[in-house]
């Protein structure tokens, strides 16, 4: 019960954080797309940039909290899948998302 309420709270908190992250990300995308950059060019700008590293790490962590909790609701309501097995699957998705995301952040910004 308390967990379910806290999950809801975490979802909304991460949502607020993501709203900011997404706006920054969209603006950056538009800027980058207009430039028409190659991989080497992009990486030349992003590698070693600690500010962006921190930003995208926060972004990945927030997404890893937000998306799985959202999926949990969808799985319950549209597939009728609730309970321990669903929670475990969603938790696994969170870990996978976090791992892949941090790997991507390392590849681009470290």
């Amino acid at each position: 019960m308390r967990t379910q309420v806290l999950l809801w709270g975490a979802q909304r908190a991460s949502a607020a954080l993501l709203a900011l992250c997404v706006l920054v990300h969209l603006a950056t995308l538009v800027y980058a797309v207009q430039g028409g950059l190659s991989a080497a060019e992009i990486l030349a700008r992003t590698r070693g940039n600690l500010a962006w590293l921190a930003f995208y790490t926060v972004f990945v962590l927030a997404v890893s909290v937000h998306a799985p909790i959202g999926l949990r609701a969808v799985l319950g309501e549209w597939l009728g899948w609730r309970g321990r097995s669903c929670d475990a699957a969603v938790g696994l998705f969170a870990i996978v998302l976090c791992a892949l995301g941090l790997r991507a952040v390392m590849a681009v910004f470290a």
Partner: protein
Amino acid sequence: MSRRVALVHRVSGIALALFLPAHFWVLGQGLAMDGFLKWTEQPLVKAAEWGLVVLLAAHLGGGLRVLALEFLPWRDWHKSLAAGAAALALGAGLAFALAL
């Protein structure tokens, strides 16, 4: 109107949740990205990118609406937030399309 915005919000969320692992995996390839970036030059991929931006903007718009409804003290005009969310998504989609 709110039901439709909620449905778009949900479907866009699912689409983004499915897209993100692939997105992270590609980015994690590092310099091997070049071959992939060449592939993204194709018009079909550009269109898909535009679609993703629209999905993201739609999800963001719907999400801001939910946050407003749940955390701001209730006002009657809150019922119109659905229209606001839709407008936001369309605006972002248009901006990106023009930038392409």
